[in-house]
């Protein structure tokens, strides 16, 4: 008994430094950001006078002008970006994994090619895709438009990320940005799915075939349910990436014309470090934290429960 207790103490002391560091540098700074978001800090020098929820009100009350309008656009952009980005990553990632799982020749080569974009920094991806999707003008097309022009497909040319039109609150300019982000991270979902597929014993499929299941039926009723936890992890990890996305969009398009490709991360950065509205920037950060928490916390709770059950 006492032996067990002593081991527990040792474990506690070994963990203590990292607990303290995380408490200070993660939760401490979150708390500090919370305090700043309720303050009147509006210049380069700190000012902790109480402002209540004023900084949040300015983000949501349309009558307050451009900031609220921009933030509303940002939230819609985040929603559409996240949904389409996740659909693409999960859908195409799964498709590639299934194709690779068919014991194709040169699988290793394909796997490396699909995974390789993940090794790049978002900043590099952003700059390159900015060039690729630069629209040019009618007489002098650039990037993809030059390619389409060369192929005689002029009808397909459009303004890419400089297009300010949309369908309802959805900005078409987001499409190139979503493609760039998905291009980078499809390899990641593919790798996860491929690992999952390899983990499914051949006997299961054999048994299903013996029972007369079609190949499509096997995927629907056996493979997909087994892959479900992988889908969930992929959605969580990519979901919080897309809610916080900053570097890719900042280097590729910035806020864009009429904020067509703006997201809360860019708004926060410009508000804080260009405009010196530190309290306002902290308020945006807190809202981003809440958005990510809405995704992460249910996941953490469910995994925690599962662990307790085990």
């Amino acid at each position, binding site marked *: 008994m006492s032996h067990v207790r002593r081991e527990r103490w040792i474990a506690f002391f070994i963990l203590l430094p990292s607990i303290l560091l995380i408490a200070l540098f993660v939760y401490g700074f979150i708390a500090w950001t919370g305090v700043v978001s309720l303050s009147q800090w509006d210049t380069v020098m700190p000012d902790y006078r109480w402002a209540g929820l004023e900084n949040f009100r300015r983000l949501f009350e349309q009558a307050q*002008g451009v900031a609220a309008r921009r933030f509303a656009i940002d939230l819609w952009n985040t929603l559409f970006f996240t949904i389409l980005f996740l659909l693409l990553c999960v859908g195409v990632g799964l498709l590639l994994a299934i194709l690779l799982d068919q014991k194709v020749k040169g699988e290793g080569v394909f796997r490396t090619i699909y995974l390789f974009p993940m090794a790049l920094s978002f900043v590099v991806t952003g700059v390159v895709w900015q060039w690729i999707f630069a629209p040019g003008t*009618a007489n002098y097309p650039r990037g993809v438009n030059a390619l389409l022009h060369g192929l005689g497909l002029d009808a397909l040319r459009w303004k890419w990320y400089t297009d300010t039109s949309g369908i309802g609150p959805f900005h078409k300019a987001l499409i190139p940005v979503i493609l760039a982000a998905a291009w980078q991270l499809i390899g990641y979902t593919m790798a996860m799915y491929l690992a999952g597929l390899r983990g499914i014993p051949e006997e299961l499929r054999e048994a299903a075939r013996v029972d007369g299941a079609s190949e499509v039926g096997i995927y629907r009723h056996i493979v997909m349910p087994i892959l479900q936890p992988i889908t969930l992890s992929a959605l969580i990890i990519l979901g919080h990436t897309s809610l916080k996305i900053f570097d890719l969009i900042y280097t590729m398009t910035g806020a864009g014309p009429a904020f067509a490709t703006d997201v809360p991360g860019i708004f926060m950065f410009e508000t804080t*470090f260009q405009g*010196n509205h530190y309290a306002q920037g902290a308020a945006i950060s807190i809202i981003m934290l809440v958005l990510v928490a809405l995704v992460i916390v249910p996941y953490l709770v469910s995994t925690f429960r599962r662990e307790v059950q085990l």
Partner: protein
Amino acid sequence: MTKKRVLFGMVAVLLVAAMLLTACGKPKEAKLGGKLEIFSWWTAGGEAEGLNAMFKIYAAKHPDVEIINATVAGGAGMNAKAVLATRMQANDPPDSFQVHAGHELIDSWVKAEKMEPITFIFKDNGWMGKYPQGVIDVLSYKGEIWSVPVNIHRANILWYNKQVFTANGVTPPNSFDEFFAAADKLKAAGITPLALGDNGIWASVHLFETVLIGTLGPDKYRGLWNGTTDWNGAEVKAALETFARMMQYVNEDHAALSWDQAAKLVADGRAGMTIMGDWAEGWFKSIGQKPNVEFGWVPAPGTKGTFDMLSDSFGLPKGAPNRAAAIAWLVVCGSKEGQDAFNPLKGSIPARTDGDRALYDEYLKSAMDDFASNQIVPSLAHGAAASEGWSTAVSNAMTLFVSDLNVAAAQSAMAKACVDAGVCK
């Protein structure tokens, strides 16, 4: 252990003694020593060479001072500003730092009481008559001068392709009417009349500020920044309408380009004109074009006789570790010798009016003439006219305006930005 402590104690005592000595030492002919940390975002090209040229002058005068060149690269100073803010908030200022002259310095650091006034440096060195009054006004707040400008750039220049203009029978426009007449001719010839590269939006703010000056004139334009000109007035509305009309003549992919890519459209003859600051001249020259041969320039429409200025300057933070050496640095920055060393390399003109003309090229000579005789107004897009918070709010309004061209919405957003900045009521 104890030995170490004794050593530490001795060093501490020596340091205090040294500080006392520098503080009490006679200001005249006192030999300067120690370290001098100069903070800037001049890391490459002509500006870094210019900075080094000023360091050389300083080192010749004060050989015992060790200069520490603290630069932070990237983001047109954005990264440097973030680093500087952290250091200032922690009361750990460099001895002197680069900052855009005018409200970027005043609203950020002077109002926070982090700077020392340096009017005495101007008086002691007899500079008051050497700098134009318009520049002194931009540098001043509450009757004191707060930084030494090392260079001047001009924002309100229209650059044009001479071959394109001659081939299409267009002459450089001076007024908005002439501008639109020229633009129509170029458009009919299938040439983009006005090149714009507003990726990151500041180039649109820059263009709009020249339209404001051209519409309001220098006095009323200055009034926009101190609350005496009404943002809701008919003239601001007219400026917004002119800007909206100009947008019918720009390259359709302006949101994807940077200013230098827009300048390239002009250089390649795909576009006729672009309105940009005079750092564009350095860019044209860097690709091998010659002033008044391949490219020409006139003041932006309606702004003849007005010099829309921006300037890099150095200030004296409170609690500078080596104050005496920092003051000596500011003396070099403001001297004729220092400015004539820096500016030919940077491609700008001296902030003083007595620069050595032989050192500057054809364009810069014309800018020096205008600078000495014109009305001088501060630039909005480059930190001289308004606080960073205010100019960010104008940028946000422009981001929407550039695409929806809704004059009423843009005007009310800009009027509100003035109120939020605490200048208008």
